[in-house]
Each structure stands twice: as structure tokens, then as C-alpha cells.
């Protein structure tokens, strides 16, 4: 009885979180006229028509997805590089200046991202870097470097210092120690830290809306155009786009589930 109750609770919770996603993915394979059929058809002849129309009617979609890929990769590399260097110092050393700078890292995490668009938009257009991958990479990295640093610090903390000392005795420099000794032992931390940046950069909307127009436009933006057309939303095409956009990131999250938990524990609760 108690177990049946738990199971039905779990079923309801899963329905709540998965149902909207499943509806969209399923509907993307339906012919246009059946999408709003009531009752919804679970059995239907699947078609790739929506995907065909996505390619022909929204030629910018896949180039925009490439932009998302470039920006996500760049932001992840930049974040993890900065975070590993800083995380190492916070894990290994103590001092008032370090404590102050660590506190500053936590503090800036509290500021709302939209605030920085006001000065940065005119500044970046003066530098003529608006609508470039660079702008989004730097912005995304800045807003996640703090969480990533905390995650890296937690993982580096678990690496025994003796290993480093041995390498130092053997005459290795600081960078060599980091690259050859520390980094290979904190791969899990790198994955956990990357994960949050990847999900954020792949899905981010506001900065992309403000700072990109055409050349560096990312996938969520072209999808928002599909959503806000004045002459009625073409749901079939939108669902095809949503499916293509969410499939890789969803697969990634499900595969890397345990890193999400490890990262949140190290980055949010302990930080």
C-alpha cells in the first residue's frame, strides 16, 4: 500500500517533468494538421515533413546551431581554464587576500546578469565586437567562472599534496605540476564544472538577445523568432527545431547525471 503510493507519486512526478518534452518530440514527427488534434493521436504515421521544412524555410537554423556550438565550446574552455587555475590556488593556499578575493567571487555571483548589458552594450558596440562569438564567450565565462572555481577547488582539495611535492622536488615548474600532476587527477571536476557552463551557454537567451543580431545569433534566438511570428506559429517547424536543439544537451545531462549532483554539492552548498 505504502509502496503503491510511492510509485504513483513517482509516476506523477515523472509525468510532470517529461510529458511536455515528450509531447514536443512526438509532435515534431506529426503532419501539421494532426498536431492540435483532440484527443491527441498517440498512433500516427510519422513524417519528417517538419524537419524538411525546417531546413528549407529556416535556412539560418543550422548555421545558428553552429554558432551555439562555437560559443558553448569557447565559453566552456575559457571557464574551465580560469577556474582550474584559481581553484588550485584556493585549494592549496590560505591568506587574507585570498579570502577577500574568494569572498568577492561569491559576491559577484549575486548580481543579476541583465544589469551588465546596460554599460556593456554601448561599450562593445564602440569596440565593434557586438554580434561576435567573442562577446558571448566572455559573458558566459564571466557568469560561470565563480561556480566552476568552487567546483574545481573542491576536487583539487582531494588530490594529495605529496604528489605535487614529489614533482616539485624533481624540478617541475608550477605549470608542469598543474598540467601533469593535478589536472589528470581532477578530470571528474573538469566534467562537473564544464557541465553547468555547457547547459547554460547552449540555452542562454538574454545575452544572445541583446548582443547578437545576425552573424553570431544562437539557436534559442532563431527559435524565439519562430515562436513570435505574427501570422500564427508554425508549430511543426518549431517542434522540429526544439527537438534538434534539445536532443544533444538532454542526452548529455542524462549521461552525466552524477556529475550534476557532485558539482552542485561542491559548488553551491559548500561555496
Amino acid at each position, binding site marked *: 500500500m505504502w*509502496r503503491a503510493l*510511492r*510509485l504513483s507519486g*513517482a509516476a506523477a*512526478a*515523472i509525468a*510532470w*517533468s517529461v510529458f*511536455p*518534452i515528450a509531447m*514536443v518530440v512526438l509532435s515534431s514527427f506529426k503532419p501539421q494538421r494532426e498536431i*492540435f488534434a483532440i*484527443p491527441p493521436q498517440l498512433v500516427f504515421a510519422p513524417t519528417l515533413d517538419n524537419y524538411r521544412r525546417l531546413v528549407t524555410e529556416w535556412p539560418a537554423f543550422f548555421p545558428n546551431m553552429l554558432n551555439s556550438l562555437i560559443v558553448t565550446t569557447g565559453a566552456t574552455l*575559457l571557464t574551465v*581554464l*580560469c577556474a582550474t*587555475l584559481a581553484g588550485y*590556488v584556493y585549494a*592549496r593556499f590560505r*591568506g587574507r587576500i*585570498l579570502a577577500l578575493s*574568494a*569572498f*568577492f*567571487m561569491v559576491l*559577484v555571483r549575486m*548580481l543579476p546578469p*541583465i*544589469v*551588465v548589458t*546596460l*554599460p*556593456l*552594450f554601448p561599450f562593445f558596440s564602440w569596440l565593434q565586437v557586438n554580434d561576435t562569438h567573442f562577446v558571448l564567450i566572455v559573458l558566459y565565462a564571466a*557568469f560561470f*567562472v565563480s561556480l566552476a*572555481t568552487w567546483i574545481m*577547488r*573542491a576536487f583539487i*582539495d582531494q588530490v594529495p599534496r605529496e604528489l605535487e611535492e614529489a614533482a616539485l622536488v624533481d624540478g617541475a615548474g608550477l605549470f608542469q605540476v598543474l598540467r601533469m600532476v593535478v589536472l589528470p587527477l581532477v578530470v571528474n571536476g573538469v566534467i562537473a564544472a564544464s557541465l553547468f557552463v555547457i547547459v547554460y551557454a*547552449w540555452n*542562454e*537567451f*538574454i545575452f544572445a538577445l541583446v548582443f547578437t543580431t545576425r552573424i553570431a545569433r544562437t539557436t*534559442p534566438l532563431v*527559435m*524565439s523568432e519562430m*515562436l*513570435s511570428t505574427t501570422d500564427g*506559429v508554425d508549430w511543426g517547424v518549431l517542434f522540429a527545431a526544439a527537438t534538434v536543439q534539445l536532443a544533444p544537451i538532454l542526452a*548529455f*545531462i*542524462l549521461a552525466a*547525471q552524477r556529475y*550534476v*549532483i557532485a558539482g*552542485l554539492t561542491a559548488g*553551491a*552548498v*559548500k561555496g
Partner: protein
Amino acid sequence: MTAGAAPLTAARPAARRARRLPGGTRPGASHYALLAPAQILLVGIILLPAIYVAWMSLQKVSFGADPVFVGLENYRALLADSVFWRAAWNTFLVVNAVVYGELLLGLGLALLVSGWMPYRKIVIALLIAPYAINEVSAVAMWRFVLEPDIGMVNWAMLQIGLGQLDWSADPADALVLAALLSIWIHTPFTFLILYAALQSVPQEIKEAATVDGANAWQSFRHVTLPFILPALLVALVFRYITAMRIFSEIWLLTEGGPARMTEVLAVYLYRAAFRYHEFGLASATAFAMVLLSLAVAAPYLYAAWLKMFRHA
């Protein structure tokens, strides 16, 4: 995970000396240099712009003209704008609905999953799926089932005489939908933090409580809750701070309409800056959001301050 756990009580001097490497754990110049990339990003992209916004909020800025210092004029104009007050009120309502709705749902799910549960890994994976979904897709998904008259949930509610969620015409319904959406997207975060915290509750103490005759509620209230309280508070503060930024859900649903009835602070700011080019007004809003965020974060920041300097 006990990573990053320097002892929570102030370490005794002898113990601290013992932990130090030869040469001490004071950083050298090269170590400070390792901090530079991260700190430069934070200062250049977040801190300086945030300070500059404070200065901008005291200026009258318009295109093609030099900024003129106007003191608190922008704040006076902001406080006199009824649209701003509606945006602030809407934000207050949505944020509280989202934060507490999510906390209850997240706690419920965490308790459910950490008890008896077959295929736990798969269940967790399915529950955190919304975390991977971008806001545009999420809005599309929810609009699809709640499209007035024809979305299946609205259609079903109409059939059984409940009336529908008429978000495209009714501002209150639009805010309800935005809150639901936001809860849907962000519950995985709250759920996972609380789930991880529940894993740290020692099983023996719970068993001891049961042996002593505590019922499920007493065991939760007096054993589980004290253990997960820190995580609960962290989730609460974090979600308050991030929920206050709510933008995309509203923007993609209604753009703040009809008649600016459903704006929240971030939408008000965005409109002022990028639609009406009222940069003074937008900056005043932005700085108000900064102060609000810091005020909400103050207890968390204070705790972080104490913790960091205790080990310094």
C-alpha cells in the same frame, strides 16, 4: 561529498601549523597570477559594469548628447511610474510563488526518491530532464498544451467546466503560467540540492528515532530537517536571487503585455533600455535590482565571509 571541507570549527594553531607545507601555505606572486584570469573576467565583465550602472543611474543619457548629471532624478521618475510599481509587484508575486512552490515540490521529490524507489537512477534522470531545456522550448511546450481553446489541457479544462487558463488575454493567468513554467524549469536544481543533502542524513539516527517510537513526521521534523536545513536555506537564497531575474518566461509569453500589465523588473529594464532608450531609467532599475539582490543575499554572504576568514 566532503570536498572542500576545511574543519568547520576554528582550527587550533598547532593543528594549523601541522597542516602547513614546508615554506608555508601563504601564496607567492606566481600563485596570485593564477587567480588573475578569473578575477579579470569578474571585475571587467561584472563588477565594473555594475558600478558604472550606479553612476549611469545618476545621469540623463540620450543619443548624440553628453550625459548630464541629474542626481536622483531617474529614481524619482522611476518611483513615479505606475508601470514600474506594477512590474515590482508582479515580480514579488511571481518570485514568491516560484521559490516556495519549487522548494515544496523539490523537497517532496527529494524525500520520495531517497526512500524506497526502484530504478532510482532512471527516476532521477527523468526528474532532472527539464534542467536541459531552454526557455524558448519550454515556453513552446507549455503554450502548446495551454493554447487558448485548442491546447489539450485548456480544452480538457473547458470540457469539464473549469474554464481555461487564458494567458494571452488575462494578465493574472499569464503570470500564473510564467510561474508554472519557471517552477518546471528550475525544480531540478532545488530537487538535486535537497536530494544530495538527504543522502548525508545518518541512517542510524533515523533508525534510533524509529526504535524510540517516533512516527514519520516526528522523525522528519527532529532528525531529517535539522540535517538538511543548511541546504534548504542555500536553495532558498539562491532561488530567491535567481528568480528575481526572471525575464525569458515573461518576455517569450507576453513581452510584458497586454498593456504592460505583465511586466517584471527585468522586462521593465529591458524595455526601458532597448525599446525606449531611456538609459537613465533602465540604470536606476538595474541598480535597484543590484541592491535588492545583495539585500536578499546578505545572510548568505555574511556566512560566507565568516567561513572564509576563519580559515584565512
